[in-house]
């Protein structure tokens, strides 16, 4: 276990970063605090929601408030926390990995303020009660146009980020011909490329169907088409959220563990496989829908099984990297390396806890995607359990760890002790397991989703009551962890925290640092072509059918 007493500062031969002096310092801090603010509000709303659904009396418990809250919770977690965090982390990566100023900072700030305007617009719409359509906003339920316009602004802001990331990488490649793009930046740009592809679905749905309906320009909407377009975005978006966490697995964890990344090549391959296999599989969210045939649904199951491959590869590569680190620290035998890892370091602890949650969350996902078996779980609490565990758990716990790595570099101050950080991470893990495991059980019993209250006089529903309370306790533990996370970061803004001047680049070295790479592992030209082919295969007919043989449309149902 690493202790401060072990410190023998050894300067590296490359230029180090002056802590607190990054050019993107204020940009990153601004983005990440916006993400955290949305996250904290959403955590508290989540606790209230679970209280409302439990047998216990919750204050202000009306259907209108419940669905306002669920909409706010979903939008904050799925669109604001994620997009702003990813943008901030991307700017941090671009400067620290490429070791040059990020191009177009003025554009980045413009995008930030555009995103803020969008968030405020959407938030006010939700609070007003005229946008209780949840973060999935399925038409023909139609909210006030301000809700949708707000979301569009956030997406447009993120597109600006994508272009800056791509441009930054291209500029570095021109200045460093023949060299391998650092893995951390390659993966960040992979994420940007994937995001540009995946937002096409929801953008099309919003611009051509939902916003015209909200403005009163259409009285009817093709619901099958809108669900299909939304599904285009719905899978790769979760990989957009997941990329920072996997980036931390590959490029930060091995260094924090005191070792090296087992294989840089596999890292690049994993991110490439995520791009090509996560984009076409959105239709697996529509396995229970009437409008698509069994043939296309089976294709989706097959492709979704393929998107589990990069995760299964990652499990091995990162475990192997951990083994290297553990053995370098003196561990012997088949499992002895586990004990010698520096679990006292938040990045190492978070990775271990993330992998434990990945087992359960990923396992649940394998069940969800299995074609007919989806009927057992669709729209039950099992699904709620799956995505809270995999996103709220595996992904978000790494967001905490990344923030803990970035913050000393951004603020020029260091954490006086690792204990509050590790306590916060443990609380998050424990809370998440306690909250989500009961949901798997009640989901299999038929507990369904998006309900403002349960009638506990029914015997079946009454049997769920104790489990709902257990989940609520898990949620309260999560809320405590969330507040502790905020506190931990706030302490670095206070002048009472110790200052330090110089910090090493936090990225891991690979066992074999890449030399010259083929273009396919250093850029995205080939992969864009493959994505286009797979999207055509998976979505071509499923979308075209709505134009070839148009179904009857539904009447727009305005909420206000």
């Amino acid at each position, binding site marked *: 276990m690493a202790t401060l007493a072990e410190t023998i*500062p050894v300067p590296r031969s490359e230029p180090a970063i002056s802590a607190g002096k990054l050019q993107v310092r204020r940009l990153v801090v601004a983005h990440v605090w916006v993400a955290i603010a949305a996250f904290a509000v959403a955590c508290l709303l989540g606790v209230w929601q679970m209280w409302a659904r439990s047998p216990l009396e919750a204050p202000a418990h009306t259907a209108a408030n419940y669905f306002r809250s669920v909409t706010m919770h979903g939008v904050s977690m799925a669109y604001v926390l994620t997009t702003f965090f990813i943008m901030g982390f991307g700017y941090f990566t671009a400067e620290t990995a490429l070791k040059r100023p990020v191009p177009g900072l003025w554009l980045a700030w413009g995008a930030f303020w555009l995103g803020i305007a969008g968030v405020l617009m959407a938030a006010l719409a939700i609070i007003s009660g005229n946008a209780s359509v949840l973060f999935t906003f399925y038409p023909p339920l139609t909210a006030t146009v301000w809700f949708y316009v707000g979301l569009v602004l956030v997406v447009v802001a993120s597109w600006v980020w994508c272009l800056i990331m791509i441009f930054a990488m291209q500029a570095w490649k021109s200045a460093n011909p023949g060299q391998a793009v650092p893995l951390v930046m390659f993966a960040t740009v992979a994420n940007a490329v994937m995001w540009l592809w995946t937002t096409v679905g929801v953008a099309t749905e919003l611009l051509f169907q939902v916003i015209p309906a909200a403005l009163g320009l259409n009285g009817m909407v093709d619901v099958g088409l809108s669900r299909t377009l939304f599904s285009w975005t719905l899978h790769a978006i979760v990989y957009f959220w997941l990329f920072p966490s996997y980036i931390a697995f590959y490029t930060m964890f091995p260094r924090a563990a005191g070792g090296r990344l*087992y294989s840089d090549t596999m890292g690049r391959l994993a991110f490439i496989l995520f791009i090509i296999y996560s984009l076409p599989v959105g239709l697996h969210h529509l396995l229970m829908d009437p409008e698509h045939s069994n043939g296309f649904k089976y294709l989706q199951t097959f492709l979704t099984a393929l998107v589990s491959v990069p995760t299964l590869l990652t*499990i091995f590569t990162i*475990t192997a990297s951990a*083994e290297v680190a553990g053995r370098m620290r003196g561990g012997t035998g088949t499992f002895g390396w586990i004990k010698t890892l520096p679990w006292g370091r938040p990045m190492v602890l978070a990775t271990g806890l993330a992998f434990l949650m990945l087992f359960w969350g990923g396992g649940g996902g394998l069940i969800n995607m*299995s074609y007919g078996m989806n009927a057992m779980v669709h729209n039950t609490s099992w699904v709620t359990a799956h995505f809270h565990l995999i996103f709220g758990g595996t992904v978000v716990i790494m967001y905490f760890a990344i923030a803990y790595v970035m913050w*000393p570099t951004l603020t020029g101050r260091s954490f*006086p002790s690792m204990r509050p950080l590790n306590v916060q991470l443990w609380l998050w893990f424990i809370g998440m397991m306690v909250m989500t495991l009961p949901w798997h059980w009640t989901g299999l019993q038929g507990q369904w989703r998006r309900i403002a209250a349960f009638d506990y006089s029914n015997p079946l529903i009454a049997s769920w009551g104790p489990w709902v309370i257990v989940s609520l306790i898990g949620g309260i533990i999560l809320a405590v962890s969330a507040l502790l996370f905020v506190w931990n970061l706030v302490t670095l803004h206070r002048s009472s925290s110790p200052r330090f001047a110089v910090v090493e680049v936090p990225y891991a070295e690979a066992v074999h640092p890449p030399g010259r790479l083929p273009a396919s592992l250093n850029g995205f030209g080939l992969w864009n072509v493959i994505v286009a082919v797979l999207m055509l295969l998976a979505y071509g007919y499923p979308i075209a059918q709505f134009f070839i043989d148009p179904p009857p449309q539904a009447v727009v149902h305005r909420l206000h």
Partner: protein
Amino acid sequence: MSDPAYPVTRHDYAGDAEELERLEAALEGGPKGAVAVSLIAVALLMIGWLGMYFLVFLPRGTVG
């Protein structure tokens, strides 16, 4: 001076001969530990999936 909360120790420094020696020693014998942990994890996943499919899902009746 580096961040005292993330001490750079001899264990962490990458690139000098001492680190390379420890790295080579660590890689000797291949990734036995990672193989073991990964195999156990996916075996449990498979048992879980097969169990759910044949013992929980199919007995609940057909769907189509």
